[in-house]
């Protein structure tokens, strides 16, 4: 008995000393405060469920907050790379931060997994990967639904900022691909208190459906205004609006709004043959046990998938070099690029030298607001 206790104590002590020599450092940059905080909470909470050891190597997570500011993200990434000597970067979770950090990580040969819908350019930035669905993929799924519904004309309303521009660009592309005519491009600001005028403009153009390029609770405004003015057409949105807060603020006015989302957001409603279902269910069951039933969100899934990708690549990278060395980081990058058929909670990843995101339509699910709940559409 005494011997066993001693052995256990010795093992613990050894475990406590060993990782200081051989451990993998993962730098994480998230927008935990500032305007992006609503999403940052989800990104961060996933780190309670991350593996502490992969292939016999302890993993050290160094989590930093960029306060929803790309300039901060740049400074943090610089420190993580130069002072902490991280082996890989998870994040940033903010699109503009990804764009800012990308050249830095690539110059230092540190593989990074962006968690915003950044479109990786492997030829230019070979060390950049992204695990969030590209907007063009998400919006194309929405437009395929419109096409199936016989919709011919669509009016666009979105934020007058980068997000609005990105969704608009994806909308133009998807509309051209499906032969749907785009009749309006109306914009408003996140902090606006009324979109009555833009809604009136849309009404005068009589589109069959409206596509929204906005996110979070300010996305309720155009829906409420259009319905108040008596608009009867379908209203579509992007995955930025899929949260319980959208329904809580919108009430019955947002009933029937259709949007795309990441599979993990409706993990319990996925079809039984969906490959993502078991992985997403396993993750979200643990996640909601700790954070409450209402905490389901797609963002935690991006953090989880980023580590899943890295963990998957670690064994191959270890054959190339020791953690902390450049050979290890290069090996990690090569292994990430070779990821094939990896099932995450946000889709299935099939990377290649030309595709550093690797997701397909299995990464997008359509949902609609029905009886005050986001409900998957089959």
């Amino acid at each position, binding site marked *: 008995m005494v011997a066993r206790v001693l052995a256990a104590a010795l093992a613990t002590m050894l475990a406590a000393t060993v990782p200081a020599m051989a451990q993998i450092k993962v730098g994480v940059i998230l927008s935990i405060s500032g305007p992006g*905080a*609503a999403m940052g909470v989800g990104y961060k909470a996933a780190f309670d469920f991350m593996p502490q050891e992969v292939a016999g190597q302890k993993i050290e997570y160094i989590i930093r907050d960029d306060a929803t500011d790309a300039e901060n993200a740049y400074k943090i990434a610089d420190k993580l790379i130069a002072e902490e000597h991280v082996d890989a970067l998870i994040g940033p979770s903010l699109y503009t931060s990804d764009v800012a950090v990308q050249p830095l990580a690539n110059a230092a040969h540190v593989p990074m997994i962006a968690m915003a819908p950044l479109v990786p350019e492997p030829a230019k930035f070979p060390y950049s990967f992204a695990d969030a669905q590209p907007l063009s993929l998400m919006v194309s799924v929405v437009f395929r639904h419109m096409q199936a519904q016989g919709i011919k004309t669509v009016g666009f309303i979105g934020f007058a900022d980068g997000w609005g521009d990105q969704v608009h660009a994806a909308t133009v592309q998807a509309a051209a691909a499906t032969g749907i005519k785009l009749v309006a491009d109306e914009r408003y*600001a996140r902090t606006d*208190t*009324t979109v009555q*005028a833009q809604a009136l403009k849309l009404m005068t153009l009589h589109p069959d459906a409206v596509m929204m390029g906005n996110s*979070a*609770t300010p996305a309720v405004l155009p829906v409420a205004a259009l319905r108040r003015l008596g608009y009867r057409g379908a209203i579509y949105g992007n995955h930025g609006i899929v949260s319980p807060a959208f329904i809580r603020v919108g009430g019955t006015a947002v009933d029937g709004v259709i949007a795309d989302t990441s599979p993990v957001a409706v993990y319990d409603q996925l079809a039984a043959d969906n490959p993502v279902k078991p992985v997403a269910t396993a993750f979200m069951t643990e996640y909601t046990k700790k954070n409450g039933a209402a905490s389901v969100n797609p963002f935690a899934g991006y953090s989880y998938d980023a580590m899943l990708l890295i963990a998957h690549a670690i064994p191959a990278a270890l054959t190339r070099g020791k953690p902390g060395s450049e050979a290890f980081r290069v090996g990690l990058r090569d292994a990430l690029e070779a990821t094939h058929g990896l099932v995450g909670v946000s889709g299935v990843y099939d990377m290649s030298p030309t595709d550093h995101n690797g997701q397909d339509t299995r990464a997008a699910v359509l949902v609609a607001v029905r009886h005050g709940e986001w409900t998957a559409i089959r």
Partner: protein
Amino acid sequence: MTPFVFLALLQDGLTSGAIYLLLAMGLLIVFSVTRVIFVPQGDLLALATLTVAQLQAGGVPGTLWLLDALALAALLGEIAGGRTTRRTLAAWLIYPAALTAACWFGPRTDPWFAMLLGIAIVTPFGPLAWRFVFRPAADASLLALLILAMALHFVLAGVGMVLFGPDGASVAPLTSATLMAGPLAISGQSLAVVAICAALVGGLRWFFGATLTGKALRATASDRLGARLVGIDAAESGARAFALAAFVAALSGVLIGAVTPIAYDTGFEIGLKGFVAAIIGGLASYPAAAAGAVLVGVLESLGSFWASAWRDVIVFALLIPVLAWLSLRQRAAGEP
């Protein structure tokens, strides 16, 4: 543009304009009495909406505890300075205690009760801002006061984010009735906003014209030194001006929160539009500021219809000719 569309835009613009007008009044009162450009007014607006929304949802808002803590600090400060009067006791002990009790035991999910309680909770933040931030620097330069106001804006926005989280919230409308005027649907809430705004402007007119407190405020505004010579307490006037501004901000928050969701960071921009209106009034003239507020509201609505992406550019570009004209007029009047 059909007449229907024009009227609908006008209705929307007038509703926004009424809110801007209320905020412009608050800004003018504070500026004329204390020379402070009360930037954080918009944040108080957002805090009011979020407080009422949380009350209506059955929660106890964090702003209540913040008020209790700050009031206690103010009270201790008065006691330490040996300035305790019956009035300071009422303001910093009895009032917060009564609010806490009302929130704890009262029917806080009742929409009307929650609105009144929310306004009552947020209004004291005006005098508290004066007590802790602006009164100690009352004789500082205009620029220093503006920097203080900006700093307070960031603090209040941060407080709103910590207390209420990043999501927006709405409050229950005063009325859900809709009036049909031909093809035009006029929402009862819009009418209520305009009516309450008009009533408040009338009330302020009476307050400044007929009551001793109001006259004292006007006296301080027109000549600070002169007012002090005839025995008007400048510190007391400042507190009252800030209370009025915070009150109109809280009221605006409750009114606009029923039309649109408000998040912790929404208020600043609304306050900025009120500021544009106040500047059109030269930060001095109430009728000109009122006209400015309506102009901003309607221009914003029409701008959104014609070129939605350029709306804010149109509204803020309005400042350039106004400022040019104001400075030309000032030079003509022989002032530096």
